[in-house]
């Protein structure tokens, strides 16, 4: 009898554990489960900020490798990406052949675009504004991707389950560009007109979407559309040209009235601007000889861009201010300006010129020349100086937007890349205008094919 009691005691003990299985329910405490994140409007905002965070990584050095590294304005002595790009020895192991950071932006944007609507009881302005930003960021990433690699996998849904197709093939670039246009048109209609203060520069606004859209239309040679979207930018009160005395401040201080969109950085969220351009004795890039020789007499920007007193300038001080001299390869906290008014004005000039609207083109071109302290020119002078008006505008872009990551894309989009670069590095094949896809991408996805030129 006594023993039975003891058995019962032991049984009770075991019983105490049948409360049990709930202890196996453990939710994350310091992060969120993937599907459980988007719950409040604050979450929606944080989700969008997370996309910009990825953009910071994507742009920190590649805006320059992609936009300048293969073009004629820069020269370099640095092995690795700088020399490979400059000498047109692109391999599938160079860093700039990797699209990982861009797709990180796209993935975060896809999560935001899918889940933000569920946060709000019904669609409203605020949700559309946030989605507008997310779609503009996705468009920006895809726009870089098609310009760099041509066809790329087009993914517009977040990855949440192993059932999804991981091994997406490359999508035709025109389809990708269609998606980019659709995203930007949505953003142009739904993003905020103004985010207020610094938010007008470092976050996407309607104006930012319009400016990027202008670039996309120019890439696709849709000149009429480009003029219309550029028009919207130029009519936007947020943007005005700064005076030439403040020209360096666009880059060194950031947040200028001329900026339409720039990627924000600070002391801890840094980029490689200084390593790229301004490290006193040994920066990645310095102005090429042809670039230095292409200035017109009296161009006020020349001394703002580099040290003209040096016979072989080894640095570019445009981004840090005239006289900048620093021996330290510090990561830098300057914002990286991706879209600004002068850029859009010159694109519009190009579009007008392409449509034969010479007068409009000249007027816009001269606006920029004027600020640089250069005399107005007419069509004949443009022809005398540069051969034709398009060349004059592109030259103006070369100087005005120097090292900002536009030159290579300008050359490609206007069909001049081979002409300009062949004497420099022997570039001769249309198929060579895109980058190779990084080998890591092949190792992970059997359905990818390398760009023909690089096979």
């Amino acid at each position, binding site marked *: 009898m006594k*023993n039975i009691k*003891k058995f019962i*005691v*032991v049984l*009770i003990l*075991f019983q*105490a554990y049948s*409360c*049990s*299985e*709930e*202890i*196996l*329910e*453990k*939710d*994350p*405490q*310091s*992060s*969120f*489960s*993937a*599907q459980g*994140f988007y719950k409040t409007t604050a979450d929606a*905002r*944080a989700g969008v*900020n*997370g996309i*910009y*965070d990825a953009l910071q990584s994507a742009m920190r050095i590649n805006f320059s490798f992609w936009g300048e590294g293969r073009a004629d304005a820069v020269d370099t002595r640095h*092995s690795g990406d700088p020399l490979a790009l400059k000498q047109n020895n692109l391999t599938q*192991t160079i860093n700039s052949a*990797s*699209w*990982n950071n861009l*797709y*990180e932006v*796209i*993935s*975060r944007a896809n*999560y935001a675009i899918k889940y933000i609507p569920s946060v709000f009881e019904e669609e409203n302005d605020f949700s559309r504004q946030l989605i507008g930003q997310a779609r503009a960021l996705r468009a920006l990433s895809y726009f870089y991707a098609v310009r760099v690699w041509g066809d790329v*996998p087009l993914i517009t849904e*977040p*990855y*949440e*389950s*192993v059932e999804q197709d*991981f*091994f*997406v093939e490359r999508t035709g670039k025109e389809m990708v560009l269609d998606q980019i246009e659709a995203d930007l048109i949505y953003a142009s209609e739904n993003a905020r007109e103004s985010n207020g203060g610094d938010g007008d520069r*470092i976050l996407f606004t309607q104006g930012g979407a319009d400016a990027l859209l202008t670039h996309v239309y120019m890439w696709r040679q849709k000149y009429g559309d480009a003029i219309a979207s550029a028009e919207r930018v130029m009519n936007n009160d947020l943007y005005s040209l700064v005076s030439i005395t403040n020209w360096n401040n666009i880059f060194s201080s950031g947040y200028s009235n001329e900026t339409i969109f720039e990627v*924000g950085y600070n*002391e801890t*969220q840094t980029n490689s601007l200084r390593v790229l351009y301004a490290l006193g004795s040994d920066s990645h890039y310095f102005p090429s000889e042809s670039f230095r020789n292409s200035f017109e007499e009296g161009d006020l920007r020349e001394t703002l861009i580099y040290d003209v007193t040096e016979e072989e300038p080894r640095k570019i001080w445009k981004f840090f201010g005239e006289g900048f001299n620093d021996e*330290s*390869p510090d990561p830098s906290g300057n914002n990286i300006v991706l879209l600004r008014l002068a850029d859009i004005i010159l694109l519009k000039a190009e579009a007008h010129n392409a449509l034969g609207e010479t007068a409009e083109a000249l007027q816009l071109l001269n606006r920029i020349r004027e600020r640089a302290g250069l005399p107005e020119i007419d069509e004949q002078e443009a022809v005398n100086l540069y051969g034709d008006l398009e060349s004059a505008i592109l030259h103006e872009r070369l100087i005005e937007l120097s090292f900002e990551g536009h030159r290579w894309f300008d050359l490609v989009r206007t069909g001049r890349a081979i002409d300009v670069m062949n004497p420099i590095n022997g570039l001769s094949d249309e198929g060579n205008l895109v980058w190779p896809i990084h080998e890591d991408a092949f190792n*992970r*996805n059997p359905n990818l094919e390398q760009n023909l030129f690089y*096979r």
Partner: protein
Amino acid sequence: MNEKNCLLSFIDFRLRLSSKLNITFLLMFFVINMFAQEKTVSGKIIDGNSGEPLMGVNVIVKGTSNGVSSGFNGDYVIHNASPDDVLVFSFLGFETKEVAVEGETEINLAMEPATNALEELVIVGYGKKKKRNLTGSIASIDSEEISQSALNDPVSILQGRAAGVQVISNSGAPGGGMTIRVRGNSSLNSGNTPLYVIDGVPIESSELSTLNGSENHGLNPLAAINPGDIESIEILKDAASTAIYGSRAANGVVMITTKRGSAGAARVNLNVSTGVSEITRKLSVLNASQYREVIVDSYRNMENPIEVTWAVIDSLNPRNNGDIDWQEELYQIAPQYKVDLSVNGGSENMRYAWSSSFLDQDGIILASNYQRVTSRLNVDFDISEKVTVGQSISYTNGVNNRINAAGTGNTSLVRELLVRPPSYSMYLPDGSLNGYQWGRRNPVGLAEQATHINKTNRVIGNQYLEYDIIEGLRFRTNVSLDYLSMKEDEFFPSTLDYREGYNEGAVRSINNLTWANENYITYDRQFGDHNFSSLLGLSIQNWKYERTGLDGMFFPSDNIRTLNAAGTISNQEVNITTEHSMLSYFGRVSYDYMERYLLEFNLRADGSSRFGRDKRFGYFPSASAGWRFSDEFFMNDLEFLNDSKLRFSVGQTGNEAIGNYTSQGEFSVGTNYLDMSGAAPSVMPNSGLTWETTTQYNAGIDIALFNNRILFTADAYLKETNDLLYNVPIPRTTGFNYITQNIGSIENKGLEFLLTSHNIDKEFRWNTSLNVSLNRNKVVDLPDNLLTNGYIQNGRYHILQEGMPIGIFYGWKFEGVYARDEDNVNGVTNGALGREFQGGDPIWNDLNNDNIIDEDDRQIIGNAQPDFFGGISNDFHYRNFSLNIFFQYSYGGDIYSEINHQRNSVVSYNNLSTDALDRWRNQGDVTNFPRPLRDDPMQSDSRIQSRWVEDGSYIKLKNVNLQYNVPPSLIERLGLNTLEAYVTASNLITWTNYTGYDPDVNSYSGLRAGVDEGSFPQSRTVIFGLNFGF
């Protein structure tokens, strides 16, 4: 009800139980005392072999806890022994004897040394078992082997001493990390570490340190355990032994048992030792002028030569006028001191073992030091005839003043001291340290000025209550906790940086609490020749990890290094908390007939919070059988055969080593955009995740020959692991790097042999113990969709491929150097569009004979898995001297020497090994050292290549221990009972062809075996010590 309530209700219940029992027990004591009779027995105990008196023999009245231990002359006096009592004499290393009192008042005894190791008990999961009755496969190491090794942590002791257990050093730093594998890698994930159980408490054994600088591995979490406290270590290897630990047992179980007290007068032991360590060898490096010549060559060899940077060749510049072998500046002779004090004894109803130790050990690299204080108390109380309670509690305080030794960054000291150009000066003209120069930090500055401290406090405690309900039926409950608090501080002063005023600091505070409650009943019964024993239990365990930390920069001064001074907080990790819990049921039934036929079954059911709700519980069964054929009548004629047994086992175990929330996916916070807080998906969810399951088959034989003088054990096993948890790389277009999935399978099979022989057993004694382990590892199956090129890339150097072992290196095969341009007769080019290889370029094996060297020419260039490994130990005893000589070896594993690559890389302006003196310089030079080339257009430098793969076979004179027991006659006057003087040398000589510091190296734990990126080198150590017994 949540788990707290569960626990509370349980504790509450226990309290009620014990208060009720207490009354009963008080009554019982009263009764016992009433009827006790006064009678005293005394006598003298001697060693039957030598005739010397034996001190410290336990003498207990059988069936009671009444006991004493013999004094200095072997004398003992025991009171309260009645004429009908039986006295039990026991002493470590001797046969236990029982003598009936039968009215005698003087009983003298000669004790016989124990020769039959098979009668010893070994620890198994939730119990003990006679070694001769094991049906599974268990390796054990006793306290004598532990004390001979004079090592400071329990893991390194296992190296070479246990068959089937491979131990590799990740780092030679004091308290540095180790890799341990029981019967091979059974998982593709990093979860290949065995489960550690100390006195029944499953403890946290994963690396918790988060500030490891650029190292890939950090500290050894088991360094907190003082080997001096350990009675024995058992390694459970096959499924029959481990299945009782279910889902955590696939990698084996290491059971550590600490010393407990025994009845008798207090025995005090003081062990004092001191020693020195030094680097085993230094590597060859170029001097400044040789270095400059190579760099000049490397520029001249460019296709379009550019000007040599002045930064390297200008020997008049005060930053650049040095000529330094940095090894000379960094390696030092390192002292160490250790004091161990222990007291152990007991009375009628209580036994205790108390110990404390202090260790102060310098590393062989400047400014590295480890200090550890440990303290332990193990007590057991018989609170009644039926109830025993006890407690073990240990506390460790460790302070590890670390340096960034390993890894690939420029803060990695071992690499820097080999590759920093010799021409870089130590000091600038103003007397200050040349702390940073062209991408290189000064290693002396790194060691002396940077802070990298890890402070650990750890408490491991265990309380138990055992209750004999009726004869044979016993209940035991344990509540245990393992609390670890760690604080880490890191600081890089601005003197080591190129940026004015740029300094960085970081702090982390980590709390890790694991608690467990285990309850089980055992029932043992004998019916004639039939022996039954059974076990039924349940266990609940919870792990909680909390971390708070800050990173900061721009401190106004290098002298204030706490984070409150940081000008900018660059990263915050505040109250990061993760939690994980497990609920388990387990049971065992064993049966034997006359110890001739043995059977055992185990089953454990484990539920883990880490897995999706539908896949939460796993069931892990095992069965084993033994046949002692030596007891069969037809074997009776073989007299030389004392004991022999065949063993068979089969069973399943699991592995749940994934992130706590991986199956749910994760959104991480902290992905901020400027000061706007952000969040982003960081782990892709997979709701179908479940256990890895390992099925293991084992067959073994144990043979004892010639009066137990030769013991031989052999085991063969086959381990198949399915549903491998693996971070499968997925296209980055998904936004994720990988997804954790259950994929594929791995197989390990192997043989283990252990031979122990008493070669000579006279006044001079000589014992030999030899073990050999062979393990063959093979990836059996990987899902096709992961095999983009027929394999999975596994880090930089390795691939995973079906049919091949884990740990194969994959890259280009180096076949020498073109002596002249014309030697490239086929016009082999670098890639389809690249240049032709010319004189001085490496000759790569053109696998597909297309005269193009590209990705398709990569091949398997090495295998890190050794063919076999083990150890040989010889013990010699003569009178008061004993000598142990222990060799440890590993044969056939390759090493990818990334450090040798770094030591020959001009692309990074690294200093080179003296091999570079034989470099190709002119057309026609026949050499194996390619021309140095500044910009590496032919990828001679960047390829993963067989040039850096070396044979990592070695045999080491790992340990020599000479001990002298000072005769009692000499020390009696000092009031001492025993005095031993000893000298121990470890890592004395290594025979190897490996050209790095030491072939016992592993820069990555986990799967990326056999890579040497420049780990903290192993050291040679000599220790002298005295062991006093009072």
